[in-house]
């Protein structure tokens, strides 16, 4: 099996100028993500990891550098799905209507999409909730709906901006494991932004460590545990070693 590169960035930088002041949000980010990989962008807040994800999604234009997403310049497209920290479900739409939003916007065949939406809701454990409204759901369930929504157009690449960051730790752990299960099952390439070392090591094949002011890539850590992972994985000595390796990288570069 040959692995192709899905994301390739070269010297990506982003500078904001506000009131004569120049703020460097991102500086010289060069990295590659291979097909089917689950990767994390890890760093403390203000390190530009979210900005970088938005650049990959084509929602923010970088000041310098080149980016290729599957060989093409970044822009919003069906093959790339983005998920946010907040579920951003629309309260005027039922659960299934929210999941079908991409189909409407992208003009996909409605009958197929409806069937697929039901399958995806079952996949995220929400069958039977189709005609409920978002406000009737817990925060974790709302993010499950958002996950089904991002999966609806069957994107190859998932860009996830701290998708479970606002949830309690138990829910986040469960959803992290489900995310990796679903990503493996459907062979997605995943880039996840997080500030949790544990979360990054738990779900990733590789961790990109960012440092703040200016946002730079300070190191890449391979996490050679196979999938599927479970809570047992996090109890092993190798796991603890990886966590401290990543943490060291963050602390060193923080100074």
């Amino acid at each position, binding site marked *: 099996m040959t692995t192709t590169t899905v994301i390739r960035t070269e010297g990506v930088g982003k500078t904001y100028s506000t009131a004569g002041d120049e703020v460097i949000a991102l500086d010289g980010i060069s990295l590659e993500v291979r097909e089917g990989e689950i990767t994390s962008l890890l760093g403390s807040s203000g390190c530009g990891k979210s900005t970088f994800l*938005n650049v990959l*999604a084509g*929602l923010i234009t970088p000041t310098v550098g080149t980016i290729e997403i599957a060989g093409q310049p970044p822009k*919003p*497209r*069906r093959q*790339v*799905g*983005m998920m*946010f920290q*907040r*579920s*951003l*479900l*629309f*309260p*005027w739409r039922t659960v299934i209507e929210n999941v079908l*939003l*991409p189909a*409407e*916007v*992208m003009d996909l065949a409605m009958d197929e999409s409806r069937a697929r939406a039901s399958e995806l809701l079952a996949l995220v454990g929400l069958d039977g909730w189709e005609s409920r*409204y*978002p*406000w009737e*759901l817990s*925060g974790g369930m*709302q*993010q499950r709906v958002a996950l089904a929504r991002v999966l609806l*157009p069957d994107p190859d690449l998932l860009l996830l901006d701290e998708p479970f960051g*606002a*949830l*309690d730790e138990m829910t986040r752990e469960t959803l992290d494991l489900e995310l990796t299960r679903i990503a493996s099952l459907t062979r997605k390439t995943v880039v996840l932004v997080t500030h949790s070392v544990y979360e990054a090591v738990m779900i990733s094949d590789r961790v990109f460590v960012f440092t703040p002011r200016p946002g730079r890539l300070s190191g890449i850590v391979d996490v050679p545990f196979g999938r599927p992972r479970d809570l047992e994985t996090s109890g092993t000595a190798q796991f603890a070693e990886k966590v401290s390796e990543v943490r060291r990288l963050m602390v060193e570069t923080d100074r």
Partner: protein
Amino acid sequence: MTLTDQSTTETAPTGADRVSWRRFRGPIGAAVIFLALLGFWVWLVESETVHRVILPPPGEVASAFLTTFTEGFFYEHLWVTVQEVLLGFAIGVALGFSLGALLGASALAREVSYAYIVAFQGLPKIVLAPVFITAFGFGMMSKVVMAVAISFFPLLINTMSGLMTVDPEAVQLMRSLTASKRDIFWKLSVKHAMPSIFAGVKTSLTFALVGAIVGEFVGARAGLGFLLASYSYQLQVDRVWAITFVLALLGIILYLLIEWVDKKVVFWGKRGSSIDIGM
């Protein structure tokens, strides 16, 4: 609960009593105030504090009110006013929404028109009535224009402010889904602004009624405002009060109607453009 029941069985109200009192205290209170106002009205007339020519006793007004509904020409006037109000309201809402959408979407449009909006907001729009009568005549047209002139404004403001509070991250979500500007506007922004827009619609409807009646006062050949003014000139004060109550009734019916539509359309109420979790 059981403890209090045992110790004060004779005096303490039971739970069921308390619940029914909570349910009926509003209507009971309202009825008490109604009777008090009616009593005050009778006292004002009987004690000759207010002359009968200005305020007839409730009985006379009530019978004038009922007589009004037996007269054929009343319905012609009612129909004229209802048409003016609904037409003015419809045009006002369409105009207010369109302009509000334009201003909500374009910063340039807001900057250019800001001074005019403030000026128009400050203007007591009733002063436009004589101008409209001169320009559009004594028929329904001038009243419709008047109703439009004062009813479009609340909708403009509410549409604009509703559109401007759209969650930027929800817009990013739509963009990431390759949504066109049109899709973002109709599937996100307008929906998000709906609660605000409908608050404006309610005000607009009330204003449309005011506009039509003011227009009829200033110069008309038909309509409830015209009828009221005519009765006033003829010193048929019981009839004046009867029409006043008809207008109040009309206003209430229109308001309840729009509130019913509001509940159907904006069923998600104040739940915002998106559900926040733990933030």
